[in-house]
Structures are given as structure tokens and as C-alpha cells.
């Protein structure tokens, strides 16, 4: 399917979803749905770098919070100068996206010469450095946090949370379309070569550094865009919770549980896990919901390494053993595995 029809279909599905939520008539569904959609965007964004390129980013919360805090900064600017205008959410998303994208690019320059684990640790470090900066920046509230007063209603739609829901829905559609576009383009094949064997890719003339920089920028920008409307949603923004590791663990768990090789995986993972979390938070407690995410993550990476998509392909569609192998050679570098697998067991 071409990209334009896909985008339209997504929009129609999104429209139906919005209509269904409207028909239910309870604003709670919009509150809960917003969080799920936010996770769809975050996990899709994470997957562009983590799933396609194989670089694990632990700093999701950092990028997300950058988006959120650029909104706070704009809000304070408007408040301070007593401008009467309410800034439209798409504009805030754009600003948040640009800020996070630029930081993503910068982080890429600093860290992408490092392979694998070093990169992951550096992203974790980046999130903490950003948090320290925000905590010490009084203009956006510092460690006390910042209050955002959201307007009661928006003209054609009704309550403000419906408007936020709609905006996040559109962002999710855009995010999924971008992810699918990348996956099927030259760029996506380039990313896959990096994931499979970076050295071989480099040797075959794939511009790995440039591709990785593109990936961090797109991924970071999407995360920032997801964070931009957040202050209006939550009303009171505080560094501790905005930079919380919950975002990091969720945005990693969701794609891995869904399946990382295609845009469907993060979507499935986010919808399933996101809704499950909403249900558990309401019925049991929010601490238990993190425990369950952790357990599911560990269980899935051990038992079903290719996620739900991998399971469906293997057992339902019977498309052969290795779903990932369909498009490329496999996840392991050629030299590494046989050494452990095929050599005879030494007496112990």
C-alpha cells in the first residue's frame, strides 16, 4: 500500500475512534485514551531508533520532558508578558519537536560513535543531566514544579481534554505513517543493515553515522512532540515525575512486547499494555502496574524474542520460524554465535 492511502485509512480509523469515544459521552475515556495514545507515539518513536537501528535508548523520559518543558517555557513567556493568546497545541508540538530533535541530533553526535551498551548508558546520563538543568532552572518552576491553567473548552469540540485527545490522535497517526514510510524506504533498509552488522554495513558503504543521526533526530523529535501537550493535560508539571523512568521502561517494553521490526509492533504493544495499565491503575494500584510491565518485559524477551508479531507469524500464519529473517539475515553477527553454539561442551 502506498503511503497516502495508508495515512487516509489511519485518519478514518482515528476518526471512528474519536466518534466512539464521543458516543460514550464520558470524559474519563478521553483522559485514559490520551495516555494510551501518548504511549503509541512514544513507543513508535523509540522503535525508530531501538527497533530499526538496534540502539537502545533509555532516555525517552528526557526527550518527552524536553517537549513538556518547552511548552512550560512558552506558557511562562506568555504569562509574564501578559499576552492574551492561548497557543494552539500543534504549534507547541512543533516547538517541542524541534527542541527535542535538536537535542537528539546533539546526543547522536556525542554518543553514536559508541557502539551498543555505551550509547544506552549515555542516553540514561543525558536524561539525568537534563533533569538537573530543569530542577535548577527557576523560570520553568524548578523543583517546585509549574502550574498550567488550561482553558475550559475549545470552540467546536467541547471540553479541553477532548481537544488534547484529538491532537494526540492525529500525532499518533502521523507518527505511525512516518514509521511505516521509513520502514519501507531506502532509509529503513539502511537502518536494518546497522542493526544486523554495523561493521559490515560501514564496509559496504552505508553511511552509518549519518543514518544514525537521522534516526536519533526523528525519534527524539517525535518524543518531544508527544511531550508538548502534556503540561496542559496534567495541569501541574514537576521534574521528578516528568523525568520518571516509567516512560523509559514503557517505551522499551511496548515495542519489545509487540515486536520491533515493523510499525505494527509498537502500536499493538502500546494499545495492549497502555490499556492494561489504565485498568490496573484504576482497579489495583499504580505500583502494581509497573511491576506487571517489568514482568511482562522480562517474560517476553526470554520467551518470545520477536514479540507478539513474531508469535503470530510463527504459530498463526505459519510463515516459517524466523519472522525477522524474512527481510534480513538475522540479529546476530555472523562471527559471534557459532563459537558458543557449535563448539563441543568442555568437561566441567
Amino acid at each position, binding site marked *: 500500500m502506498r503511503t497516502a492511502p495508508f495515512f487516509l485509512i489511519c485518519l478514518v480509523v482515528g476518526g471512528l475512534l474519536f466518534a466512539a469515544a464521543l458516543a460514550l459521552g464520558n470524559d474519563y475515556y478521553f483522559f485514559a485514551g490520551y495516555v494510551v495514545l501518548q504511549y503509541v507515539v512514544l513507543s513508535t518513536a523509540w522503535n525508530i531508533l531501538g527497533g530499526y537501528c*538496534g540502539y*537502545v535508548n533509555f532516555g525517552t523520559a528526557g526527550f518527552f520532558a524536553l517537549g513538556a518543558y518547552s511548552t512550560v517555557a512558552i506558557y511562562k513567556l506568555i504569562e509574564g508578558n501578559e499576552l492574551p493568546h492561548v497557543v494552539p497545541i500543534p504549534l507547541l508540538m512543533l516547538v517541542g519537536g524541534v527542541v527535542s530533535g535538536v537535542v537528539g541530533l546533539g546526543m547522536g553526535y556525542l554518543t553514536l560513535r559508541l557502539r551498543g551498551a*555505551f550509547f544506552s548508558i549515555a542516553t*540514561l546520563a543525558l536524561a539525568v*543531566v537534563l533533569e*538537573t538543568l530543569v530542577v535548577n532552572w527557576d523560570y520553568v518552576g524548578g523543583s517546585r514544579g509549574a502550574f498550567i491553567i488550561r482553558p475550559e473548552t475549545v470552540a467546536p469540540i467541547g471540553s479541553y481534554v477532548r481537544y488534547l485527545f484529538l491532537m494526540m490522535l492525529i500525532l499518533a497517526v502521523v507518527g505511525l505513517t512516518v514509521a511505516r514510510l521509513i520502514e519501507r524506504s531506502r532509509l529503513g533498509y539502511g537502518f536494518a543493515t546497522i542493526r544486523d552488522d554495523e561493521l559490515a554495513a560501514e564496509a559496504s558503504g552505508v553511511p552509518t553515522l549519518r543514518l544514525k543521526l537521522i534516526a536519533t533526530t526523528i525519534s527524539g523529535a517525535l518524543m518531544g512532540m508527544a511531550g508538548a501537550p502534556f503540561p496542559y493535560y496534567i495541569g501541574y508539571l514537576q521534574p521528578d515525575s516528568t523525568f520518571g523512568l516509567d516512560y523509559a521502561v514503557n517505551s522499551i517494553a511496548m515495542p519489545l512486547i509487540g515486536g520491533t521490526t515493523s510499525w505494527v509492533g509498537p502500536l499493538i504493544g502500546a494499545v495492549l499494555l497502555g490499556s492494561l495499565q489504565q485498568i490496573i491503575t484504576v482497579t489495583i494500584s499504580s505500583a502494581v502496574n509497573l*511491576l506487571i510491565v*517489568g514482568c511482562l518485559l522480562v517474560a517476553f*524477551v526470554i520467551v518470545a524474542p520477536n514479540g507478539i508479531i513474531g508469535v503470530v507469524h510463527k504459530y498463526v500464519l505459519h510463515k516459517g520460524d524466523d519472522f525477522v529473517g524474512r527481510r534480513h539475515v538475522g540479529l546476530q553477527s555472523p562471527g559471534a554465535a557459532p*563459537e558458543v553454539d557449535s563448539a563441543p561442551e568442555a568437561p566441567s
Partner: protein
Amino acid sequence: MIFSFDLLINAIVSGVLIGGFYAAVTCGVSLSFGILDIVNIAHPAFIILGSYVAYIANASLGLDPIVTAIIVLPAFYALGAGIYQIYYLSFEKRGQESLRGLAFFFGLLFITEVSLVLYFGVDYRDVNAIYIGPTWHFASIDVPLRIFVPCLVSLVLIACLQFILTRTFIGRAIMAVAQDQLALRLMAVDPVRIKRVAFGISIATASLAGAFLIIIQPVEPSVGRDYIGRIFAICVLGGMGSLPGTVVAAMLIGVVESLTSTFYGPSWAPAVSFGFLLLTLAVRPAGLMGR
């Protein structure tokens, strides 16, 4: 902020002492990440687990935290060996350790932390021991015993580890497994067993580090998160798997953090280690005493 010489000297002394403690916290990761290439990002969670074990023994039996930690060393060793076995079977054997192995440890971090929250709540816990409280004074220098004792024991611990790694058969095998697994096989040594032992030792150090942590400061389950960055910063700065390098790097970061919080305020201190980490990774990935 008024600059004073006493303040400076005290900041440096407490930085060095805290650095000794950081070395104990990091030496486990120097083993697992530095030597074995296992990115055990859940190490801080095991340290917190060690703190809670020390807390339970102290609150119910009145045992000294450090004595408790030494008693439970075998249990932590077994835990580490068990985790390595799962890790080996599910990831290393299949050659998928990079992405999924990381996610596995990240998940473990959360499971441990949230389980502790559910069981003990988020209240701060602390322990009682005779060396908590008194402070030695040398002229204008204060040496609080609650930091001095962990620092001392930690240096002993690292000396023991260094002895094991360089002087015993198993230690040399651990160093060898990092270099060439196949060659080790040809010497009729099972690399998987050696790695299991090494990973067990690395988790066992978390028991002691946990006891030190709860002696130095009150502990609640999410305290461990503050240490993730610090640990890896020290490990990388120290040159990945070099224990003497770890001690030097730990004291360096301890001093810089202590100076930062004395002269600029404690809220800036967390950024120091991470800033160091980012800088080291960007400028000199081999660290101070890289192999």
C-alpha cells in the same frame, strides 16, 4: 558563597571517603560490564536489595550491617549465578544479548524496585551500629565514622577482589574469558562456568555495597536510580574492568561531587557524574586506566 580553606579541605576529605564507598558500589559492574561485557544495568537494584537485607537483620536481630552482608554473601552469589544462567540460556546462547539482554536487565531493575516498594513502602529506612554517629576531629578536619568505616571495608573488599583476579586460577580464568573464549575452551575450561562464577561474585559485592549504602544514608527503594549513572560513569572513567582504575575514578568523582555540592549547592551534584560520563565517552572512551 564564601570561599574558605577549611571548607575546601573538608569537602575533599569527605569526597575521598565517599569515593571509597563508590568504589565498592562500582566494582561489581567493573566485573560484569567491564570484564564480562554483560550490561548489568540492574546492579543498583541488587545493591538496594542488599540494603534491605541489612535493614531486616538489623531491625529484627540487631546484627551489624557489615556482618550481615558478609553472612549473606553466598546467597547473593547464588542469586547472581542463577541470573547469569537465565541470561546465558535466553540471550548469549542465541546471540541476542545486545538489545534484548539490556531490556532484560532493565526489566529486572523495575521488578526488584517495585517489589521492594510493594513490600516495604516508600518510607526511608536506616540501621543502628556503634560507628554511626561519632565523628573524629583532626584539627579542622571532620571524619564521620559512618563514612570512614564503609570506605575502609570497601578498600579491603577491592583488595581481595584484585587478589582473586590476579593471583588465583579462577581469577585468571575470568580475565582470560574476557579476551578469548575459544582459547579458554581449548585449555579445557568451560567459559560459561567461569562467567557464571564471575557474575556471581559481581552480584555478591552488591550485598556489601548495599550494607555500606544504608550505613551512610537512609534508603528507600528508588534511591538506586541515582546510582545507575554514577556507577557506569565510574566504571567507564576507570577504564572498564580495571579495579585500581575504578578506585581512582570513584574518588575523583567523589571529590568533584563533594566540591560541587559544597560550593554550588547539592541540587547540581547529580549532573557531575553524568557530565563526566558524557565527557569521558566523547573524549576518551578508554578511560583513565584503560586496557
